């Protein structure tokens, strides 16, 4: 077992604290919160794609399921925000488990298409079941997070909450990266038949990982819903699933920091190029293509190779 490297989490904590202390403008704090949410989603996908070899082009669906479960429970039924998180997690976990049972037996292109199809079906349901979801015009009136007398309705407070959660998750990921599970998953990725002959229940393991990441993504969806207070199906379309694939790939598949790096870089694109917004997708597509073609391992992979060379 390798030594735990706490630096990524510490660096993130430091940067977030610096941002929180110096940036007073609500707008940029909001941008930071959204980027953190993207980063968490991309990291979740990275665990599937980079570690386990599960190609999922339907992560936006789980993100949306979480957002809608929390959104509807809060807006329509007036639940306390905090209580909706476990429901969102469990809801997505169960759905992912059910859907994963047949889907994860597929491989390669078939798996990609099956998850994509699942994502599209969920997207269409969000649009069509307007009696629950509010349909294409979206769901309004989502409440705020409030617990122990702390109120997270303001962007500054939300930024703090999100930062704490984000650093915590990064630390947990580092533990995962150094755990036995990591090696088990990479073994499954490199050869499923070999893992089977070693007595690993590959399907069961993949299923649990898939469902757990779905639940995790759903929790991010809840965090998103309570931050923006308005959700509509557009945010959970295929486009977002593909953006996540791009973030994970550009950042570096199979590296724990990959999802974060990719999300920060691609997440800042629309902010830095707000006037040249037309080029947003061009940058996404271009970076993605270049990374796949010429930079295996993405940015995190390149960085770690460089570091090894120096050492």
């Amino acid at each position: 077992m390798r030594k735990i490297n706490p630096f990524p989490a510490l660096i993130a904590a430091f940067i977030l604290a610096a941002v929180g202390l110096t940036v007073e403008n609500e707008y940029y704090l909001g941008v930071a919160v959204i980027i953190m949410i993207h980063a968490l989603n991309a990291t979740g996908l990275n665990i599937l794609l980079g570690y386990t070899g599960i190609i999922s082009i339907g992560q936006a669906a789980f993100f949306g399921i979480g957002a809608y479960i929390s959104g509807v429970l809060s807006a329509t039924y007036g639940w306390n925000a905090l209580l909706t998180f476990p429901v969102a997690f469990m809801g997505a976990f169960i759905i992912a488990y059910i859907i994963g049972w047949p889907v994860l037996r597929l491989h390669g292109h078939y798996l990609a298409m099956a998850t994509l199809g699942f994502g599209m079906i969920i997207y269409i349901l969000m649009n069509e079941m307007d009696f629950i979801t509010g349909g294409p015009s979206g769901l309004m009136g989502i409440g705020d997070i409030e617990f122990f007398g702390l109120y997270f309705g303001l962007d500054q407070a939300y930024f703090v909450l999100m930062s704490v959660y984000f650093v915590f998750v990064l630390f947990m990921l580092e533990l995962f990266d150094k755990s036995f599970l990591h090696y088990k998953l990479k073994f499954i990725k490199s050869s499923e038949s070999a893992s089977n002959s070693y007595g690993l229940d590959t399907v069961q393991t993949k299923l649990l990982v898939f469902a757990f990441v779905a639940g995790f993504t759903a929790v991010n969806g809840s965090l998103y819903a309570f931050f923006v207070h308005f959700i509509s199906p557009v945010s959970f379309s295929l486009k977002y699933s593909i953006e996540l694939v791009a973030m994970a790939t550009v950042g570096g598949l199979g590296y724990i920091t990959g999802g974060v790096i990719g999300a920060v870089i691609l997440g800042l694109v629309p902010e830095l190029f707000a006037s040249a917004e037309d080029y947003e997708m061009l940058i996404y597509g271009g970076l993605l293509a270049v990374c796949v073609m010429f930079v295996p391992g993405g940015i995190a992979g390149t960085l770690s190779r460089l570091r090894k060379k120096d050492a």
Partner: protein
Amino acid sequence: MVRILAVMVIILSCLTAFAGEVKLGALFSETGPASYLGHPEKLTAEMLVAEINAAGGINGDKVVLVSYDTQGDEQRTINYFKRLATKDKVFAVIGPTTTGSSLAVKDLAEKFNTPLISCAASATIVTPVNKYVFKTPQSDIHAAETIFKYMKSKGMKKAAIITAQNGFGVTGRDALIEGAKVQGIEIVSDEKFGDKDKDMTSQLSKIKSASPDAVICWGVGPAPAIVAKNAKDLGINNLFMSHGVASMKFVELAGTSADGLKLPAGRLIVADRLADSDPFKPVLMQYKKDYEGKFNMPVSAFGGHAYDAFSLFKLAYEKSGADKDKFLAALAGTKNFKGTAGEFNMTETDHNGLTSDAFIMVEIRDGKFEIAQ
């Protein structure tokens, strides 16, 4: 990360406001499915701002327009609205273009203390009334009423509706169903279509089998043009459209199948066909002349909504100056303003101020809008 911080700091330091100017935010769907609504709105707003600044501004304050393209997307609209309110620090916002987007930012207007004058049609934007939210287009309720009254005058009693699955279509469907009850029209078939659908033949043939006297289609963008095409193929006559397609762009898309379509619309698109005695004619002709002269394209009702929104802003700001509460009071107190959509008479409880008189029925004949007989 350091680069990002540096960029942030630079942008922040650029944000010092100058005296003697008023920042006006604009959120229009310049592109996307609703682009033929948003594009003329944007052009109109830019034209009017240039005009007013050339004339010395409002009360000496130059108007600075900060405009973003929402692409008709709710999430983008929210982001841009927040950006306008907190980063650009605008005084008020005109737009958004579409109903869905307007509803999405309705609550934010109050939260960020930023008045909003929407250019979208649905009555739900101003009911229940929000102190900060106004709108300039005629309401869908009035449009439905105008269609039903026209139908009754022709002896038609049974209508079929086919509505878009978007904010405009969904609220329009409610308005149609409500309006039909009031006017005593029977709705014999109720179908829907998606914004991006390519073929509505199945829905229309279902409608056809219910043999209605008229079919009413409620949507914006290319989809209603496909409905018109499919309806023509199926031999459905008496197709009515909503005011959401009152633009030459729609006529272009639908081509020959637009012939004979009827829709409720503001007077603007038939301005030159109005009698000279019509009290609205001078305003309409002036705007038509300015816009068509400048951009070399025909006016549409939507550019008119932006014209009205900007005019309302101007009138209220003239009275109030930079005081937001006074501005809101002045806006809610607008009386007898003759805009392109009709005569606005706002009250505390009516933040639209138009009645169904603002609509007339028009018909598309040979690729032109004519007053329907």
